[in-house]
Protein backbone atom coordinates (compact mmCIF):
# COMPACT_ATOMS: atom_id res chain seq x y z
CA UNK A 1 0.00 0.00 0.00
CA UNK A 2 1.26 3.42 -0.82
CA UNK A 3 -0.94 5.42 1.48
CA UNK A 4 1.98 6.08 3.81
CA UNK A 5 3.18 8.80 1.54
CA UNK A 6 -0.16 10.24 0.54
CA UNK A 7 -0.48 13.63 2.09
CA UNK A 8 -3.45 15.07 3.93
CA UNK A 9 -5.85 16.83 1.68
CA UNK A 10 -5.48 20.54 2.16
CA UNK A 11 -7.70 21.84 -0.60
CA UNK A 12 -10.07 24.58 0.47
CA UNK A 13 -13.75 23.76 -0.12
CA UNK A 14 -15.06 25.94 -2.92
CA UNK A 15 -17.65 27.66 -0.74
CA UNK A 16 -16.23 27.61 2.75
CA UNK A 17 -18.66 29.01 5.27
CA UNK A 18 -17.43 29.33 8.80
CA UNK A 19 -20.29 27.17 10.00
CA UNK A 20 -19.94 24.08 7.80
CA UNK A 21 -16.22 23.55 8.19
CA UNK A 22 -15.08 21.28 10.96
CA UNK A 23 -12.62 18.46 11.52
CA UNK A 24 -14.54 16.29 9.06
CA UNK A 25 -14.03 18.70 6.16
CA UNK A 26 -10.84 16.90 5.22
CA UNK A 27 -12.97 13.92 4.15
CA UNK A 28 -15.16 15.91 1.75
CA UNK A 29 -13.38 14.69 -1.39
CA UNK A 30 -13.68 11.04 -0.52
CA UNK A 31 -17.32 11.50 0.51
CA UNK A 32 -18.02 13.11 -2.87
CA UNK A 33 -16.21 10.34 -4.75
CA UNK A 34 -18.23 7.68 -2.98
CA UNK A 35 -21.54 9.49 -3.41
CA UNK A 36 -20.80 10.02 -7.08
CA UNK A 37 -20.23 6.32 -7.57
CA UNK A 38 -23.32 5.22 -5.67
CA UNK A 39 -25.49 7.81 -7.46
CA UNK A 40 -24.97 5.87 -10.69
CA UNK A 41 -26.94 3.02 -9.13
CA UNK A 42 -23.80 1.01 -8.45
CA UNK A 43 -23.98 -1.50 -5.56
CA UNK A 44 -21.60 -0.38 -2.82
CA UNK A 45 -18.56 -2.66 -3.14
CA UNK A 46 -17.45 -1.84 0.39
CA UNK A 47 -20.64 -2.78 2.15
CA UNK A 48 -21.17 -6.43 1.33
CA UNK A 49 -22.69 -8.64 4.00
CA UNK A 50 -22.17 -12.40 4.12
CA UNK A 51 -25.47 -13.65 5.45
CA UNK A 52 -24.30 -17.21 5.81
CA UNK A 53 -20.90 -18.83 5.36
CA UNK A 54 -21.15 -22.36 4.00
CA UNK A 55 -17.48 -23.30 3.68
CA UNK A 56 -14.10 -21.62 3.10
CA UNK A 57 -15.13 -21.09 -0.52
CA UNK A 58 -18.90 -20.50 -0.41
CA UNK A 59 -21.22 -18.02 1.26
CA UNK A 60 -24.69 -16.57 0.87
CA UNK A 61 -24.48 -12.90 -0.14
CA UNK A 62 -27.67 -10.93 -0.93
CA UNK A 63 -29.57 -14.21 -0.77
CA UNK A 64 -27.41 -15.73 -3.50
CA UNK A 65 -24.90 -18.57 -3.16
CA UNK A 66 -21.55 -17.02 -3.98
CA UNK A 67 -18.10 -18.40 -4.69
CA UNK A 68 -15.58 -16.63 -2.48
CA UNK A 69 -12.49 -15.48 -4.37
CA UNK A 70 -11.58 -12.53 -2.24
CA UNK A 71 -10.81 -13.88 1.21
CA UNK A 72 -7.38 -14.50 2.69
CA UNK A 73 -8.39 -17.98 3.68
CA UNK A 74 -5.60 -19.37 1.49
CA UNK A 75 -5.33 -22.76 3.15
CA UNK A 76 -9.03 -23.15 3.89
CA UNK A 77 -8.56 -23.76 7.61
CA UNK A 78 -11.66 -21.93 8.87
CA UNK A 79 -13.88 -25.00 8.89
CA UNK A 80 -11.24 -27.61 9.59
CA UNK A 81 -12.91 -30.00 12.08
CA UNK A 82 -9.84 -30.29 14.35
CA UNK A 83 -9.42 -26.53 14.43
CA UNK A 84 -13.10 -25.90 15.17
CA UNK A 85 -13.05 -28.57 17.89
CA UNK A 86 -9.97 -27.03 19.57
CA UNK A 87 -11.75 -23.68 19.69
CA UNK A 88 -14.91 -25.17 21.19
CA UNK A 89 -12.93 -27.00 23.83
CA UNK A 90 -10.99 -23.88 24.82
CA UNK A 91 -14.18 -21.88 24.98
CA UNK A 92 -15.63 -24.44 27.36
CA UNK A 93 -12.49 -24.83 29.46
CA UNK A 94 -11.13 -21.28 29.60
CA UNK A 95 -14.13 -19.04 28.90
CA UNK A 96 -14.77 -16.36 26.33
CA UNK A 97 -11.92 -13.96 26.99
CA UNK A 98 -8.89 -13.15 29.12
CA UNK A 99 -9.91 -9.59 30.07
CA UNK A 100 -6.29 -8.61 30.43
CA UNK A 101 -2.91 -7.79 28.93
CA UNK A 102 -0.40 -10.47 27.99
CA UNK A 103 1.93 -9.15 30.70
CA UNK A 104 -0.68 -9.19 33.48
CA UNK A 105 -3.50 -11.70 33.67
CA UNK A 106 -3.84 -12.30 29.92
CA UNK A 107 -1.34 -15.09 29.29
CA UNK A 108 -3.06 -18.49 29.50
CA UNK A 109 -1.72 -21.93 28.75
CA UNK A 110 -3.15 -21.52 25.24
CA UNK A 111 -1.08 -18.42 24.47
CA UNK A 112 2.06 -20.30 25.45
CA UNK A 113 1.06 -23.29 23.32
CA UNK A 114 0.39 -21.02 20.40
CA UNK A 115 3.85 -19.46 20.68
CA UNK A 116 5.33 -22.93 20.94
CA UNK A 117 3.52 -23.93 17.74
CA UNK A 118 5.02 -20.90 15.99
CA UNK A 119 8.54 -21.69 17.22
CA UNK A 120 8.13 -25.24 15.89
CA UNK A 121 6.62 -24.06 12.62
CA UNK A 122 9.49 -21.65 11.88
CA UNK A 123 12.20 -23.54 13.80
CA UNK A 124 13.07 -20.30 15.54
CA UNK A 125 13.98 -19.50 19.15
CA UNK A 126 11.39 -16.87 19.98
CA UNK A 127 7.76 -16.20 19.16
CA UNK A 128 5.55 -13.42 20.42
CA UNK A 129 1.81 -13.39 19.78
CA UNK A 130 0.00 -10.07 19.36
CA UNK A 131 -3.72 -9.36 19.15
CA UNK A 132 -3.50 -8.61 15.41
CA UNK A 133 -0.90 -8.55 12.65
CA UNK A 134 -1.40 -4.82 12.44
CA UNK A 135 -0.29 -4.51 16.04
CA UNK A 136 2.65 -6.85 15.50
CA UNK A 137 4.04 -4.53 12.82
CA UNK A 138 3.13 -1.42 14.75
CA UNK A 139 4.72 -2.74 17.92
CA UNK A 140 7.91 -4.34 16.68
CA UNK A 141 8.82 -1.62 14.19
CA UNK A 142 8.12 1.33 16.48
CA UNK A 143 9.93 -0.30 19.38
CA UNK A 144 13.14 -1.34 17.65
CA UNK A 145 13.58 1.65 15.31
CA UNK A 146 13.47 4.90 17.27
CA UNK A 147 14.67 8.45 16.94
CA UNK A 148 17.99 8.65 15.07
CA UNK A 149 17.64 5.15 13.57
CA UNK A 150 16.88 4.61 9.87
CA UNK A 151 14.14 2.51 8.30
CA UNK A 152 14.61 1.61 4.65
CA UNK A 153 11.42 0.21 3.19
CA UNK A 154 9.58 -0.59 0.00
CA UNK A 155 7.22 2.19 -1.08
CA UNK A 156 4.36 -0.31 -1.47
CA UNK A 157 4.52 -1.47 2.16
CA UNK A 158 1.34 -2.30 4.08
CA UNK A 159 -0.36 0.41 6.14
CA UNK A 160 0.59 -1.29 9.40
CA UNK A 161 4.28 -1.00 8.45
CA UNK A 162 3.96 2.71 7.66
CA UNK A 163 2.13 3.32 10.89
CA UNK A 164 4.84 1.49 12.85
CA UNK A 165 7.46 3.70 11.19
CA UNK A 166 5.56 6.86 12.07
CA UNK A 167 5.03 5.80 15.66
CA UNK A 168 8.71 5.13 16.31
CA UNK A 169 10.03 8.44 14.98
CA UNK A 170 12.89 6.84 13.03
CA UNK A 171 14.10 8.45 9.81
CA UNK A 172 12.02 6.82 7.10
CA UNK A 173 13.60 6.22 3.70
CA UNK A 174 11.40 4.54 1.09
CA UNK A 175 12.62 3.04 -2.16
CA UNK A 176 10.87 2.11 -5.41
CA UNK A 177 8.92 -1.12 -5.26
CA UNK A 178 11.09 -4.25 -5.47
CA UNK A 179 14.02 -2.20 -6.85
CA UNK A 180 17.24 -3.72 -5.51
CA UNK A 181 19.45 -0.96 -6.88
CA UNK A 182 17.30 1.83 -5.45
CA UNK A 183 17.42 0.11 -2.09
CA UNK A 184 21.20 -0.29 -2.17
CA UNK A 185 21.76 3.34 -3.17
CA UNK A 186 19.85 4.49 -0.13
CA UNK A 187 21.55 2.11 2.27
CA UNK A 188 24.91 3.31 1.00
CA UNK A 189 24.12 6.93 1.85
CA UNK A 190 23.04 6.33 5.44
CA UNK A 191 25.66 7.13 8.11
CA UNK A 192 27.60 3.95 8.74
CA UNK A 193 27.16 3.97 12.50
CA UNK A 194 23.40 4.62 12.46
CA UNK A 195 20.98 1.84 13.40
CA UNK A 196 19.31 0.47 10.26
CA UNK A 197 16.20 -1.61 9.73
CA UNK A 198 15.20 -2.85 6.28
CA UNK A 199 11.51 -3.77 5.97
CA UNK A 200 10.27 -6.00 3.15
CA UNK A 201 7.24 -8.13 2.42
CA UNK A 202 7.34 -11.65 0.99
CA UNK A 203 4.22 -11.23 -1.13
CA UNK A 204 2.81 -7.77 -1.87
CA UNK A 205 -0.90 -8.15 -1.55
CA UNK A 206 -2.11 -5.66 -4.12
CA UNK A 207 -0.57 -7.26 -7.22
CA UNK A 208 0.36 -10.60 -5.67
CA UNK A 209 3.99 -10.18 -6.67
CA UNK A 210 6.92 -11.57 -4.72
CA UNK A 211 9.99 -9.64 -3.51
CA UNK A 212 13.49 -10.64 -4.72
CA UNK A 213 14.41 -11.51 -1.15
CA UNK A 214 17.57 -13.44 -1.95
CA UNK A 215 19.22 -10.35 -3.41
CA UNK A 216 17.60 -7.82 -1.11
CA UNK A 217 18.47 -9.57 2.12
CA UNK A 218 22.07 -9.95 0.96
CA UNK A 219 22.29 -6.23 0.21
CA UNK A 220 20.76 -5.32 3.58
CA UNK A 221 23.28 -7.51 5.38
CA UNK A 222 26.15 -6.02 3.39
CA UNK A 223 25.32 -2.62 4.91
CA UNK A 224 24.85 -3.98 8.41
CA UNK A 225 21.08 -3.53 8.52
CA UNK A 226 18.66 -5.69 10.48
CA UNK A 227 15.93 -7.19 8.29
CA UNK A 228 12.25 -7.59 9.02
CA UNK A 229 10.06 -9.45 6.54
CA UNK A 230 6.27 -9.39 6.66
CA UNK A 231 5.09 -12.79 5.43
CA UNK A 232 1.38 -12.18 5.96
CA UNK A 233 0.37 -13.44 2.50
CA UNK A 234 2.76 -16.34 2.12
CA UNK A 235 2.57 -18.20 5.42
CA UNK A 236 1.35 -21.75 5.04
CA UNK A 237 1.63 -21.66 1.27
CA UNK A 238 5.03 -20.53 -0.04
CA UNK A 239 8.19 -22.46 0.83
CA UNK A 240 8.55 -26.22 1.33
CA UNK A 241 7.30 -25.93 4.90
CA UNK A 242 5.07 -22.95 4.29
CA UNK A 243 7.40 -20.57 6.10
CA UNK A 244 7.13 -17.99 3.37
CA UNK A 245 9.17 -16.37 0.63
CA UNK A 246 12.15 -16.20 3.01
CA UNK A 247 12.18 -20.00 3.03
CA UNK A 248 11.67 -20.29 -0.71
CA UNK A 249 14.51 -17.82 -1.35
CA UNK A 250 16.77 -19.62 1.11
CA UNK A 251 17.33 -16.59 3.34
CA UNK A 252 15.31 -17.47 6.42
CA UNK A 253 18.47 -17.70 8.55
CA UNK A 254 19.58 -14.23 7.48
CA UNK A 255 16.44 -12.33 8.42
CA UNK A 256 16.13 -10.97 11.93
CA UNK A 257 12.36 -10.84 12.28
CA UNK A 258 9.42 -12.43 10.52
CA UNK A 259 6.04 -10.81 11.07
CA UNK A 260 2.90 -12.76 10.36
CA UNK A 261 -0.80 -12.90 10.99
CA UNK A 262 -3.41 -15.48 11.95
CA UNK A 263 -5.99 -13.64 9.86
CA UNK A 264 -5.01 -15.25 6.58
CA UNK A 265 -3.80 -18.86 6.12
CA UNK A 266 -4.17 -19.66 9.83
CA UNK A 267 -7.85 -18.76 9.54
CA UNK A 268 -8.59 -16.80 12.70
CA UNK A 269 -7.30 -13.48 14.06
CA UNK A 270 -4.04 -12.44 15.71
CA UNK A 271 -0.49 -11.55 14.78
CA UNK A 272 3.03 -12.56 15.65
CA UNK A 273 6.74 -11.97 15.37
CA UNK A 274 9.33 -14.76 15.34
CA UNK A 275 13.05 -14.20 15.77
CA UNK A 276 16.34 -15.78 16.78
CA UNK A 277 17.65 -12.60 18.37
CA UNK A 278 19.10 -13.50 21.80
CA UNK A 279 17.52 -10.47 23.47
CA UNK A 280 14.14 -10.83 21.78
CA UNK A 281 12.15 -11.62 24.94
CA UNK A 282 12.64 -8.07 26.27
CA UNK A 283 10.11 -7.00 23.64
CA UNK A 284 7.37 -8.31 25.92
CA UNK A 285 8.10 -5.52 28.38
CA UNK A 286 8.95 -2.61 26.11
CA UNK A 287 6.58 -3.01 23.18
CA UNK A 288 3.53 -0.88 23.90
CA UNK A 289 1.08 -2.41 21.37
CA UNK A 290 1.81 -5.74 23.09
CA UNK A 291 1.50 -4.48 26.67
CA UNK A 292 -1.36 -2.02 26.53
CA UNK A 293 -4.09 -4.12 24.97
CA UNK A 294 -5.98 -7.26 25.93
CA UNK A 295 -4.67 -10.63 24.80
CA UNK A 296 -6.49 -12.88 22.35
CA UNK A 297 -9.40 -15.00 23.64
CA UNK A 298 -8.53 -18.60 24.59
CA UNK A 299 -10.61 -20.04 21.74
CA UNK A 300 -8.69 -17.95 19.21
CA UNK A 301 -5.24 -19.03 20.37
CA UNK A 302 -6.41 -22.64 20.55
CA UNK A 303 -7.67 -22.57 16.95
CA UNK A 304 -4.49 -20.77 15.86
CA UNK A 305 -2.17 -23.30 17.50
CA UNK A 306 -4.08 -26.25 16.03
CA UNK A 307 -4.17 -24.67 12.59
CA UNK A 308 -0.45 -23.80 12.61
CA UNK A 309 0.44 -27.37 13.53
CA UNK A 310 -1.74 -28.71 10.73
CA UNK A 311 -0.18 -26.28 8.24
CA UNK A 312 3.21 -27.89 8.89
CA UNK A 313 1.87 -30.96 7.10
CA UNK A 314 0.03 -29.11 4.37
CA UNK A 315 2.23 -29.94 1.38
CA UNK A 316 -0.63 -31.53 -0.60
CA UNK A 317 -2.79 -28.49 -0.06
CA UNK A 318 0.10 -26.23 -1.02
CA UNK A 319 0.53 -28.15 -4.28
CA UNK A 320 -3.19 -27.90 -5.07
CA UNK A 321 -3.23 -24.17 -4.33
CA UNK A 322 -0.36 -23.67 -6.79
CA UNK A 323 -2.38 -25.57 -9.39
CA UNK A 324 -5.35 -23.29 -8.76
CA UNK A 325 -3.21 -20.20 -9.02
CA UNK A 326 -1.69 -21.32 -12.32
CA UNK A 327 -5.06 -22.32 -13.79
CA UNK A 328 -6.75 -19.08 -12.85
CA UNK A 329 -3.85 -16.97 -14.10
CA UNK A 330 -3.74 -18.74 -17.44
CA UNK A 331 -7.52 -18.77 -17.81
CA UNK A 332 -7.91 -15.06 -17.11
CA UNK A 333 -5.09 -14.18 -19.44
CA UNK A 334 -6.58 -16.34 -22.21
CA UNK A 335 -9.87 -14.48 -21.75
CA UNK A 336 -8.00 -11.26 -22.46
CA UNK A 337 -7.78 -9.72 -19.01
CA UNK A 338 -4.76 -7.68 -18.00
CA UNK A 339 -3.09 -9.15 -14.91
CA UNK A 340 -0.81 -7.73 -12.23
CA UNK A 341 2.01 -10.22 -12.82
CA UNK A 342 3.32 -11.96 -15.93
CA UNK A 343 3.43 -15.29 -14.12
CA UNK A 344 1.47 -16.45 -11.09
CA UNK A 345 3.71 -15.74 -8.10
CA UNK A 346 1.36 -16.28 -5.15
CA UNK A 347 -2.26 -17.10 -4.33
CA UNK A 348 -3.26 -13.56 -5.32
CA UNK A 349 -4.09 -12.76 -8.92
CA UNK A 350 -4.85 -9.11 -9.57
CA UNK A 351 -6.97 -8.19 -12.59
CA UNK A 352 -6.22 -4.64 -13.71
CA UNK A 353 -9.31 -2.59 -14.56
CA UNK A 354 -9.27 0.41 -16.91
CA UNK A 355 -10.70 2.75 -14.24
CA UNK A 356 -12.71 2.86 -11.03
CA UNK A 357 -16.03 3.19 -12.84
CA UNK A 358 -15.55 0.07 -14.94
CA UNK A 359 -13.88 -1.74 -12.07
CA UNK A 360 -16.90 -1.13 -9.86
CA UNK A 361 -19.25 -2.17 -12.67
CA UNK A 362 -17.30 -5.37 -13.23
CA UNK A 363 -17.27 -6.07 -9.50
CA UNK A 364 -21.05 -5.72 -9.45
CA UNK A 365 -21.51 -7.97 -12.49
CA UNK A 366 -19.34 -10.63 -10.84
CA UNK A 367 -21.26 -10.54 -7.57
CA UNK A 368 -24.58 -10.74 -9.42
CA UNK A 369 -23.25 -13.75 -11.28
CA UNK A 370 -22.25 -15.37 -7.98
CA UNK A 371 -18.57 -14.52 -7.52
CA UNK A 372 -16.99 -12.39 -4.83
CA UNK A 373 -13.61 -10.73 -5.45
CA UNK A 374 -11.94 -7.74 -3.76
CA UNK A 375 -12.19 -4.35 -5.39
CA UNK A 376 -9.08 -2.30 -4.63
CA UNK A 377 -8.81 1.34 -5.60
CA UNK A 378 -6.50 4.29 -5.05
CA UNK A 379 -4.94 5.30 -2.74
CA UNK A 380 -4.49 1.72 -1.45
CA UNK A 381 -3.19 0.54 -4.83
CA UNK A 382 0.20 1.04 -6.53
CA UNK A 383 0.25 3.52 -9.43
CA UNK A 384 -3.36 4.49 -8.68
CA UNK A 385 -4.71 1.38 -10.37
CA UNK A 386 -8.16 -0.07 -9.90
CA UNK A 387 -7.85 -3.78 -9.29
CA UNK A 388 -10.10 -6.79 -8.94
CA UNK A 389 -8.06 -8.88 -6.58
CA UNK A 390 -8.65 -12.60 -6.66
CA UNK A 391 -7.27 -14.66 -3.83
CA UNK A 392 -7.45 -18.39 -4.16
CA UNK A 393 -8.02 -21.03 -1.56
CA UNK A 394 -6.61 -24.55 -1.37
CA UNK A 395 -10.23 -25.69 -1.01
CA UNK A 396 -11.27 -24.34 -4.40
CA UNK A 397 -11.73 -27.41 -6.58
CA UNK A 398 -10.56 -27.59 -10.16
CA UNK A 399 -14.22 -27.40 -11.23
CA UNK A 400 -14.71 -24.30 -9.13
CA UNK A 401 -11.80 -22.57 -10.83
CA UNK A 402 -13.40 -23.41 -14.19
CA UNK A 403 -16.69 -22.01 -12.95
CA UNK A 404 -14.90 -18.84 -11.77
CA UNK A 405 -13.46 -18.38 -15.25
CA UNK A 406 -16.94 -18.78 -16.79
CA UNK A 407 -18.28 -16.07 -14.50
CA UNK A 408 -15.40 -13.77 -15.44
CA UNK A 409 -16.09 -14.35 -19.12
CA UNK A 410 -19.83 -13.74 -18.80
CA UNK A 411 -19.38 -10.62 -16.63
CA UNK A 412 -16.56 -9.19 -18.73
CA UNK A 413 -18.74 -9.46 -21.84
CA UNK A 414 -21.72 -7.90 -20.07
CA UNK A 415 -19.61 -4.89 -19.11
CA UNK A 416 -17.86 -4.85 -22.46
CA UNK A 417 -14.29 -4.93 -21.24
CA UNK A 418 -13.27 -8.14 -23.00
Amino acid sequence: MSEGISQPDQREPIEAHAGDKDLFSKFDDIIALREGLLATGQTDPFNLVMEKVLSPTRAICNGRETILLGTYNYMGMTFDPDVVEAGKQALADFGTGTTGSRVLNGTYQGHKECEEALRDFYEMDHAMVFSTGYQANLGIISTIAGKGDYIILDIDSHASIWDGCAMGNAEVVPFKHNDIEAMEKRLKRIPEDAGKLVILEGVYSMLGDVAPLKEMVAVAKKYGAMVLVDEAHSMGFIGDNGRGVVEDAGVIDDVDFIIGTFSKSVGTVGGFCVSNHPKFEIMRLVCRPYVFTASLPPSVVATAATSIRKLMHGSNKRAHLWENSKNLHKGLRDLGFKLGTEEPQSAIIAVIMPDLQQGAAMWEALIKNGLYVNLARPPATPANMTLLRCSLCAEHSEEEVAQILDIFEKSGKEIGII
Partner: protein
Amino acid sequence: MDRAQVDAKIRELAEPFNKKGVTITEETTFQNDLEFDSLTVMDFVAEIEDEFDIIISMNQQAEIENYGQLVDAVNKLQADA
Protein backbone atom coordinates in the same frame (compact mmCIF):
# COMPACT_ATOMS: atom_id res chain seq x y z
CA MET B 1 27.93 23.84 -5.30
CA ASP B 2 26.25 27.05 -4.14
CA ARG B 3 22.55 27.62 -3.69
CA ALA B 4 22.08 29.08 -7.17
CA GLN B 5 23.64 25.98 -8.74
CA VAL B 6 21.55 23.67 -6.59
CA ASP B 7 18.48 25.67 -7.61
CA ALA B 8 19.35 25.40 -11.31
CA LYS B 9 19.89 21.65 -11.08
CA ILE B 10 16.64 21.00 -9.21
CA ARG B 11 14.73 23.19 -11.67
CA GLU B 12 16.06 21.00 -14.45
CA LEU B 13 15.04 17.81 -12.61
CA ALA B 14 11.58 19.21 -11.88
CA GLU B 15 10.82 20.02 -15.47
CA PRO B 16 9.56 16.59 -16.65
CA PHE B 17 7.31 16.39 -13.56
CA ASN B 18 5.88 19.88 -14.13
CA LYS B 19 3.24 18.62 -16.53
CA LYS B 20 1.23 21.82 -16.67
CA GLY B 21 4.25 24.06 -17.13
CA VAL B 22 3.61 26.04 -13.93
CA THR B 23 6.13 28.88 -13.42
CA ILE B 24 8.21 27.82 -10.44
CA THR B 25 9.07 30.43 -7.82
CA GLU B 26 10.43 30.03 -4.31
CA GLU B 27 6.83 29.98 -3.03
CA THR B 28 5.48 27.38 -5.47
CA THR B 29 4.03 24.47 -3.47
CA PHE B 30 4.39 20.89 -4.60
CA GLN B 31 0.98 19.75 -3.56
CA ASN B 32 -1.29 22.65 -4.48
CA ASP B 33 0.54 24.46 -7.28
CA LEU B 34 2.35 21.60 -8.98
CA GLU B 35 -0.28 19.02 -7.97
CA PHE B 36 2.28 16.31 -7.30
CA ASP B 37 0.69 13.09 -6.06
CA SER B 38 2.53 10.71 -3.75
CA LEU B 39 4.04 8.67 -6.60
CA THR B 40 5.32 11.75 -8.37
CA VAL B 41 6.86 12.93 -5.12
CA MET B 42 8.66 9.62 -4.74
CA ASP B 43 10.08 9.69 -8.27
CA PHE B 44 11.08 13.35 -8.04
CA VAL B 45 12.75 12.88 -4.66
CA ALA B 46 14.62 9.81 -5.94
CA GLU B 47 16.02 11.84 -8.86
CA ILE B 48 17.24 14.57 -6.54
CA GLU B 49 18.72 12.04 -4.14
CA ASP B 50 20.63 10.31 -6.91
CA GLU B 51 21.82 13.58 -8.44
CA PHE B 52 23.20 14.99 -5.19
CA ASP B 53 24.02 11.62 -3.56
CA ILE B 54 21.96 12.47 -0.49
CA ILE B 55 18.96 11.10 1.39
CA ILE B 56 15.86 13.18 1.97
CA SER B 57 13.98 11.08 4.51
CA MET B 58 10.20 11.25 4.66
CA ASN B 59 10.55 13.06 7.96
CA GLN B 60 12.50 15.78 6.16
CA GLN B 61 10.08 15.75 3.22
CA ALA B 62 7.22 16.42 5.61
CA GLU B 63 8.81 19.80 6.48
CA ILE B 64 9.10 20.82 2.83
CA GLU B 65 6.05 22.46 1.29
CA ASN B 66 7.39 24.83 -1.30
CA TYR B 67 10.18 24.97 -3.83
CA GLY B 68 12.37 27.38 -1.85
CA GLN B 69 12.33 25.08 1.15
CA LEU B 70 13.37 22.15 -1.04
CA VAL B 71 16.34 24.06 -2.46
CA ASP B 72 17.37 25.12 1.06
CA ALA B 73 17.15 21.55 2.35
CA VAL B 74 19.07 20.04 -0.58
CA ASN B 75 21.66 22.80 -0.39
CA LYS B 76 22.27 22.02 3.25
CA LEU B 77 22.27 18.23 2.77
CA GLN B 78 24.75 18.31 -0.11
CA ALA B 79 27.06 20.67 1.79
CA ASP B 80 27.03 18.28 4.76
CA ALA B 81 27.51 15.16 2.65
